[in-house]
């Protein structure tokens, strides 16, 4: 996608790309790559794009500036991902690729360099974790089914009732979550499963954090109402039994994990609960 020469020149000056001795043609090529990705050229992080172009072109001052400004960010991010230092090697790998200049061509200025570096690191960290998990043995089915030992608490339902309650609620919650609109699922996932702040969650969804908070409260209410409706209508539980079930689930949620439910992809939305068994007990 060719960029108008006047526009490229204006953005070049705005980015002060001459500081890093970046040729106008090279900067225009970077702009074109950004435009191909759908970037709004007027809102690009031009300073960072110019710096990336300078580093990619081998300008020493640009590289020194990059090291001074961005390398601490990269290593702090690695330590935040794994306080034990396990992500430092990933940061070193990224740093090496940056030094060889090969990685800079993937930066298009749609974000700041710092955010992009965090994202590259986060991507490699998550992929390594997921690859590791694939190699781990599956948990023992019986242990998983039992949900582990029940915790002590005021709810005095017997083990049978507690297990049944958890299954009923898990089943109902799974269905309720799967029926949520995509946007509400994303909000729940960001805030509860990924533990972003309200402000971060709101930013990703394009809404104010107060709005985000209100939506979360509304979604929680919706889920609760939907679960109660299913327990009442499909399993003919009384109000007292429903309250007992919620009590049992809150004491010991067992496999009831909202993270897992939110991570389920559409083709896996069906409940993992053996519904025939639940019906039989009902």
């Amino acid at each position, binding site marked *: 996608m060719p960029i108008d020469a006047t526009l490229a020149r204006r953005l070049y000056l705005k980015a002060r790309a001459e500081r890093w001795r970046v040729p106008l043609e090279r900067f225009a090529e970077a702009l074109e790559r950004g435009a191909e990705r759908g970037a709004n050229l007027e809102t690009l992080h031009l300073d960072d794009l110019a710096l990336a172009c300078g580093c990619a072109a081998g300008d020493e001052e640009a590289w020194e500036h990059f090291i001074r400004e961005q390398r601490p960010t990269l290593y702090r991010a690695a330590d*935040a991902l794994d306080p034990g230092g396990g992500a430092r090697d990933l940061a070193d790998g990224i740093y090496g690729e940056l030094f060889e200049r090969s990685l800079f061509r993937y930066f298009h200025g749609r974000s700041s360099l710092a955010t992009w570096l965090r994202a590259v690191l986060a991507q490699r960290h998550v992929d390594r974790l997921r690859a590791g998990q694939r190699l781990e043995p599956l948990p023992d089915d019986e242990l998983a089914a039992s949900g582990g030992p029940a915790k002590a608490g005021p709810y005095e339902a017997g083990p049978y009732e507690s297990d049944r309650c958890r299954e009923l609620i898990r089943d109902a919650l799974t269905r309720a979550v799967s029926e949520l609109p995509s946007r509400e699922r994303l909000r729940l996932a960001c805030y509860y499963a990924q533990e972003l702040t309200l402000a971060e969650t709101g930013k990703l969804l394009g809404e104010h954090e107060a709005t985000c908070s209100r939506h979360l409260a509304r979604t929680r209410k919706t889920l609760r109402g939907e679960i109660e409706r299913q327990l009442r209508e499909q399993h003919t539980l009384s109000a007292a039994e429903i309250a007992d079930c919620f009590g049992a689930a809150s004491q010991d949620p067992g496999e009831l994990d909202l993270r897992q439910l939110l991570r389920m992809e559409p083709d896996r939305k069906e409940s993992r609960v053996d519904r025939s068994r639940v019906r039989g007990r009902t």
Partner: protein
Amino acid sequence: MNCLDAETLAAWFDGGLSGAALEDVRSHVATCARCQALVGAMGRTRSAVPAPQLERHPRWWLAWTVPAAAAATALVIWIAVPHQTNVAVNPSPAPALQKEEASPQSTLPPAPAQPESAAPAAAPATPARQTRAKAEAAPPAATPQAANDALQQAPASLNETVSVRSAAAPPAAAERRDEAERQGAVAGQLQARAAFRNNLCGPMWPAPPSEVAAQVTAGSSPSTAVCWIVGRAGTVLRSTDRRTWQRLTFPLTADLTSVTATDAQSASVVTADGRTFLTVDGGVTWIQR
């Protein structure tokens, strides 16, 4: 849609996506375990990014309002509280002044020329003292405008008394009043500066050590447990436990005017002549930028 690549993920976090691309990303992440994990990982690395300067500037930029508001408050209090000196030397009290003389306060000795707000004297609750107590009990005025608002809340008779007294006071009383006003304002400014020094990191932080307290000029608290303070003659202090201050070595004796810390190890300071120095090892070494 495929899973997010790092560039798209970063663009999403920095608000660089819009329209259909943004909606595609949102609907994909809503149902993708890997991309949700990426979002979570990005969230965990938030501490790696220094707080934007935009959030720090207002604090420093508005710092002048602290002494200004305190000085305004001191002035308001001084004006609002009748000074017996004026009453004693006034040869022909005006009607409003006679009304004041009839109150128990008129028998008190002349008010000392020191800030009223610093050590309020125990006295019967006259309307004027009630007003001062009200002014002292009220939340501190954040701006001169707020101080003016507080003044306007004073009883009408009090305002009348002040205006009458100002017009009728002889030159000697006026000089004493000016002196008291000047001292009151100066004391208010000093108090405000002390409060400013003690609150560079926030209200719950300990004050800097007394030997350097007068020299500090700026602070930066990147987290609840860490705060950096800088001051004149290369003064750099750091606290990582909210209880004690550690004095760090700075290579120059230049006056430092601002500090921006990102964590307990990393901070940048600016000297009065505009040079910026950076440390990433808790102040052991400093690099000029």
